């Protein structure tokens, strides 16, 4: 009887080990799948970043083409308090970031200051104030007359923001910011072309956005179930 009980105990123990092993394998599979999805998303973002001209690049083309700063193109800074949902806040963080670049490239110090305030305020709303902090503000204010340094600071800060959001597993917010910035710079470019239809360089750049759009839709699709993304996907 004792031997039977020992045998049953051993069998139960082995069976439990097997279950644990299966559960453990399942966890590993989930982890591999999760890492695979993350890698795919990273690849999509890299494709988008590779293909999408940054707001700096787009507005630099405008500047080279002899364009003047048009005050009606950027978003109204006073609208910032209207944005309450995650989708609104993320998208308009991207919009104001592109507007900040637009003002910077064209040396509009007053507008730069307005859009810097917007980006900082939106950073607080999105709980990323550790990125858009006093130190960044001071660096920008100190370099307000140095366009190149300001562009470097702005670009670096948005890269840090993207890394921070990924670390916090808030990739959907990061995707919203990319979409917002892309749409705003494309909007500024298309409005410029509307006024200057003879500018072939900008027309060419706009035509290339077809490929960026395809990648962007992929990115939004991968974050589709998260806050705000479903709506964005349908509008794209």
């Amino acid at each position, binding site marked *: 009887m004792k031997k039977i009980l020992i045998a049953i105990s051993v069998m139960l123990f082995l069976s439990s080990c097997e279950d644990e092993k299966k559960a453990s394998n399942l966890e590993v599979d989930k982890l591999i799948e999760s890492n695979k999805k993350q890698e795919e998303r990273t690849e999509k973002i890299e494709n988008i970043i590779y293909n999408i001209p940054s707001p700096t690049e787009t507005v630099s083309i405008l500047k080279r083409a002899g364009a003047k700063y048009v005050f009606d193109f950027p978003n109204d800074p006073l609208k910032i308090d209207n944005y309450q949902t995650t989708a609104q806040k993320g998208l308009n963080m991207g919009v104001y970031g592109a507007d900040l670049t637009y003002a910077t490239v064209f040396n509009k110090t007053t507008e730069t200051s307005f859009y810097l305030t917007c980006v900082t305020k939106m950073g607080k709303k999105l709980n990323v104030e550790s990125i858009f902090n006093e130190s960044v503000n001071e660096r920008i204010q100190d370099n307000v007359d140095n366009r190149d340094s300001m562009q470097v600071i702005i670009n670096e800060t948005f890269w840090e923001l993207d890394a921070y959001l990924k670390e916090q597993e808030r990739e959907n917010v990061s995707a919203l910011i990319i979409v917002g910035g892309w749409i705003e710079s494309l909007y500024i470019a298309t409005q410029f072309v509307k006024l200057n239809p003879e500018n072939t360089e900008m*027309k060419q750049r706009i035509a290339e956005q077809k490929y960026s759009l395809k990648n962007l839709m992929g990115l939004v699709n991968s974050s589709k179930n998260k806050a705000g993304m479903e709506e964005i996907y349908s509008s794209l």
Partner: protein
Amino acid sequence: MKSIFDEIKESKEVATSEENADVMMIGNKITLEMSDELLNNLIEKVADIRTEIVD
């Protein structure tokens, strides 16, 4: 509802058949010239999406 991408693709196909658009392969870079109609359509669509975002 058609996406901008679908519309660009369709317009591009029509434009190519009507010889209004020109696609050239330069190395691995694709250069696409847009017809005015397609460009105007895109300008309008981008403005609509942008309005949805900011308003």
